[in-house]
C-alpha cells in the first residue's frame, strides 16, 4: 500500500492510463489544427474532435451538436450563466435563482451579474443539503430568466432533484442551467428526458485531463447564449479559441470509459464507501453531513465533534482528504456549504470530506479507519470540549468569549 492514500477524488482524479495513451499521438504526430480545412493534418484532428464530441454526448444522451468545448466546468458555468443572463435579460427579465450551496464558479458569476444590475435569489438548502421544491417554486417570478442548480454537490455529494426543477422551469419558459461537474460517471444523466437547457461538464473529475470541459446547449427548444470569448468563431461562435485536440480526445475517451464502466464502478465504490462509513460510525460523536440516500456512492462527509478539522487533517497526513474547515486557506471560515445546512460552526469546523474513486482499495479504507480511530482519540484526549462534554457540560449553555 502506497502512502499517502488518495481519498480526494472530488478535488480531481488521476488521468486513467487508457485515456493518457489515447491522448499522446495528438501532441507530436497528429498535431493538426482541427480548424484547418485545407489539408489532412486538419481533417485528422477534426475527426478526432468530433469522435470525442460524440462520446461526451453519448454519456448524457445528448446530440453531439449540443456540445460546446470549453476549458473546464468553471468556464462552462460562466458561459452558461452570463451568456443566458445577457441574452434573455432584456426580454425575459433580470431575476436569477440559485442555491447557497452551489460551487463558487456559479456563486461568484452570479455576484458579478448582481454588480451589473441583475437580482439573484440564493435559496437555502434543507438540513439534508437538498433544495426544498416548495421554497423553490415560491421564489419563481415573472421576470425570472435563469435558474442554476448543481446536480451533485462537491462537498457533501447530495443529488439535487433536477428533473422536478427542470419541469417547473420549462413550464414557465425559464432557462435552467445545471453544473454537473461532479456527476459524470457517478449518476445517470439523460438529457433527452430532462428539462435542462444548459449543463456544465469537466473532464478531470472523471479520469480525464485538467483544462478541458464542455457545455451542453439545448437545441430543441433552443437555448440561446451570448458568447463570452470572441475570436475566430469556433464552436459555432459560442466559444472562440483553437481547440485543444489532445485534451478533447482525452475527455472523449474518459467519458466513453465512464459510460461503459459506471455501473460496475459505482457498485464497487459504494461497497468501499459503506465500509468506511461503517468504520467511522464506530467512533463516538460522529455526525454525517448531507442526505445518505440522495447521494453519490463515492462521497462521505463527516464531522468529528470536539475535534478541530485542521488539526485532524494534520494528524491524517497519510490520508489525502479535504476539510470543510477552510482554515487551510486564509479565510479561517468554516465551510459555507455546511453552514448553509444550518450546521453549528463547531461541527462545520470539524468536518472531513472523503471521496473515493476508481483506484481506491479495501486495504486503503481499512487503514484510513484505523488511523481515524487513533487520531480522533488522541485529539479528544487533548480537547477541553471533549472533557466538558464527558463531564456532562452543555457546551451550548457556556458563555464563550468570542474572538
Amino acid at each position, binding site marked *: 500500500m502506497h502512502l499517502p492514500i488518495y481519498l480526494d477524488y472530488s478535488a480531481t482524479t488521476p488521468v486513467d492510463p487508457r485515456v493518457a495513451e489515447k491522448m499522446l499521438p495528438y501532441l507530436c504526430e497528429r498535431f493538426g489544427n482541427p480548424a484547418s480545412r485545407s489539408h489532412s493534418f486538419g481533417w485528422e484532428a477534426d475527426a478526432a474532435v468530433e469522435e470525442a464530441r460524440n462520446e461526451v454526448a453519448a454519456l448524457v444522451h445528448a446530440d453531439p451538436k449540443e456540445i460546446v468545448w470549453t476549458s473546464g466546468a468553471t468556464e462552462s458555468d460562466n458561459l452558461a450563466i452570463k451568456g443566458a443572463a445577457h441574452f434573455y435579460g432584456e426580454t425575459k427579465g433580470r431575476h436569477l435563482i440559485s442555491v447557497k450551496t452551489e460551487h463558487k464558479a456559479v456563486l461568484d458569476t452570479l455576484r458579478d451579474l448582481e454588480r451589473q444590475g441583475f437580482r439573484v435569489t440564493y435559496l437555502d438548502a434543507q438540513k439534508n443539503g437538498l433544495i426544498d421544491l416548495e421554497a423553490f417554486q415560491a421564489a419563481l417570478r415573472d421576470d425570472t430568466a435563469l435558474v442554476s442548480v448543481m446536480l451533485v454537490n462537491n462537498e457533501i455529494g447530495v443529488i439535487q432533484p433536477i428533473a422536478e426543477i427542470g419541469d417547473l422551469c420549462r413550464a414557465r419558459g425559464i432557462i435552467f442551467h445545471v453544473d454537473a461537474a461532479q456527476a459524470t460517471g457517478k449518476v445517470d444523466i439523460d438529457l433527452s428526458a430532462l428539462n435542462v437547457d444548459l449543463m456544465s461538464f469537466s473532464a478531470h473529475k472523471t479520469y480525464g485531463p485538467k483544462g478541458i470541459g464542455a457545455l451542453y446547449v439545448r437545441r430543441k427548444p433552443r437555448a440561446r447564449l451570448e458568447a463570452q470569448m470572441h475570436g475566430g468563431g469556433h464552436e459555432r461562435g459560442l466559444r472562440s479559441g483553437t481547440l485543444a485536440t489532445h485534451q478533447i480526445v482525452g475527455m472523449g475517451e474518459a467519458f466513453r470509459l465512464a459510460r461503459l464502466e459506471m455501473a460496475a464502478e459505482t457498485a464497487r465504490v459504494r461497497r468501499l464507501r459503506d465500509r468506511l462509513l461503517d468504520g467511522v460510525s464506530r467512533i463516538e460523536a460522529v455526525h454525517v453531513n448531507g442526505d445518505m440516500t440522495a447521494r453519490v456512492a463515492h462521497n462521505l462527509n463527516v464531522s468529528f465533534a470536539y475535534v478541530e478539522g485542521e488539526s485532524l487533517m494534520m494528524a491524517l497526513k497519510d490520508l489525502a482528504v479535504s476539510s470543510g474547515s477552510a482554515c487551510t486557506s486564509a479565510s479561517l471560515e468554516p465551510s459555507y456549504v455546511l453552514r448553509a445546512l444550518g450546521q453549528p460552526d463547531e461541527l462545520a469546523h470539524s468536518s472531513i470530506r472523503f471521496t473515493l474513486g476508481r483506484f481506491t482499495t479495501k486495504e486503503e479504507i481499512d487503514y484510513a479507519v484505523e488511523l481515524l480511530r487513533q487520531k480522533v482519540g488522541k485529539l479528544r484526549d487533548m480537547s*477541553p470540549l471533549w472533557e466538558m462534554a464527558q463531564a456532562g457540560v452543555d457546551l451550548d449553555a457556556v458563555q464563550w468569549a*468570542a474572538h
Partner: protein
Amino acid sequence: MSYSVKVIDHYENPRNVGGFDADEAGVGTGMVGAPACGDVMKLQIKVNDNGVIEDARFKTYGCGSAIASSSLITEWVKGKTVDEALEIKNAQIAEELALPPVKIHCSVLAEDAIKAAVADYRKKHCA
C-alpha cells in the same frame, strides 16, 4: 498550510497535556476562545507559596498552531513567578513557532489564556 518544524514538534509531541483539580488552592484556570471560532484553550497553572509557577497543564481544541502555542506556553511559564508569566507576549510565541500571519491569533489566544489563568489564581488567592 505549511508548518514550521517547531509547530509540528509541539503538535506531535505536545508537552503538559492534562489538567489539575480547579478547586485546589494554588491552581489557576484560564479558558479562552470559542468553539464557533475554531479554537478553545484551557490553561492551568499550579503556583507555590513563593508565587512561583511550579507546574502547568493545557487542553486545546484548535488547529496545529493553537495546540503548539499552548504547549509552548506551558513550558515557558514553569519556574516563572506569576508576574513574570504576565510578561510573555504573543509576539514572542509567534516568533518562536514561526507562525504565519494568518495564525497570529493562536499566539494571542495563548497570551490571553495565561492572563486568564493568573487572574483566576489571584481571585482565589486574595479571596
